[in-house]
């Protein structure tokens, strides 16, 4: 799957979407969902929780193992994608459509990659 050019990417394989109103949506890239395998649980923070760049905001659990998901921004959770709690497989089916959290009051962002730089990173990891 091509990585959408309108998104930015973290080295830890999260994607970030600028919603244009000061908030950002965060999810896992297609590479990440493929590496993790079939997901059976997603643990998300609650609205109002604070998130911090480089810190885990939740985790995803596949049949084989659990993995932390890291926040690329510092801010406050203003929405979570509740559907994922009952249907974690949506991340496997459509990684770029299955946003996990939406964050506003963003005060810090880590260095993010554009889609071309992310693709370069992936070919190095291969």
């Amino acid at each position, binding site marked *: 799957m091509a990585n959408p050019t309108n998104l930015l990417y973290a080295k830890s394989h999260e994607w970030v979407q600028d919603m244009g109103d000061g908030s950002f949506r965060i999810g896992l890239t297609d590479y990440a969902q493929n590496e993790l395998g079939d997901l059976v*649980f997603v*643990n998300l923070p609650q609205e109002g929780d604070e998130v911090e760049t480089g810190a885990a905001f939740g985790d995803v659990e596949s049949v084989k193992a659990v993995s932390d998901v890291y926040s690329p921004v510092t801010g406050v959770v203003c929405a979570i994608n509740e559907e994922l709690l009952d249907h974690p497989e949506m991340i496997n089916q459509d990684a770029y459509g299955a946003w996990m959290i939406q964050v506003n009051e963003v005060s810090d962002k880590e260095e993010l990659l554009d889609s071309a730089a992310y693709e370069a990173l992936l070919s190095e990891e291969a």
Partner: protein
Amino acid sequence: MERKTPLYDCHVALGGKIVPFAGYLLPVQYGTGVIAEHMAVRKQAGLFDVSHMGEIVLTGPDALNNVQMLLTNDFSDMEDGQIRYSPMCNDKGGVVDDLIAYRLRQDCYLLVVNAANHDKDAAWISSHLTGDVRFDDLSDGVAQIALQGPQSQAILEKLCNPAEIPAKYYTFTQKMAVAGFDCLVSRTGYTGEDGFELYCAPADAAALWNALLDAGKENGLIPCGLGARDTLRLEAGMPLYGHEMNDEITPKQTGLGMFVKMDKPDFIGKKAMEEMGVPSVKRCGLKIIGRGIARENCPVYVGDRLIGHTTSGTHCPFLGGAYAMAIVEKEPAPLGATVEVEIRGKRVAAEVVKVQFYKR
């Protein structure tokens, strides 16, 4: 440096995700994924490369005596073509390995052992042999493929003379042609479904594997990896060495007492288990009620009291939930009791259930 089984190239060609396991390179899953592979075995059929398992043969007038001494189960009343499961214990009653023993003749037994314990088992067995018996380690000269699932017989019948297929669970046909290749075929498996394990020459393995996949295509047969192998065995309540037992846990402590025949004159570990008496612990099943998947080594609590630990656990795709096996003190954990399992620092509710979570 890991070794390849004779089917390595097949796995790569099929898009298998190769991982190191017990000294071998094997697929943990294919593009289908663990859940689809698990469900295929429950509903149609799956094909597994199990060539990494070890095959040891004991032959001679004293073969039976040695089998009786090394293993806890009783093999004195078997017929040719029968198979029995048994733990193999050390002097303290702890489990060296669990294995299945095939009686080829009264003076000849094939022992199939876990890949992870192969070297340990070969050393243990050969150093404990007495009398007139020959030890042969055939492992490098044997490939093994498992065909598991309700469609297994229908698929196998397309490639052989159906009259030669072993009819009963835990029996085998010593030599029959499958897709033209000589195989030992047993009606055994590690999934909780009907199925077969086929032993063949390494040179024939790839062609046999491909013939099975072709014949089984219309029956829904797909190749399955180690990930599904583990979820299937756990869902069926089957123990795995290194988890439900190890060299410090006796078979009686881990729910395998029915495979320990204390009225045999003698076997390694008998005295220790006699002296231990009835164990205060048992292996139980836990159905996780709260949110989370308990895996191995999770503490199990009743209130503030630590009563044991999980030994294995995962998401079970057919049952649609998380289940675990645990070794716990018997008295506070009767069937139906609610306990708590600590998963990554959080206590999650679970119900004590029978260990055979799924029965076909």
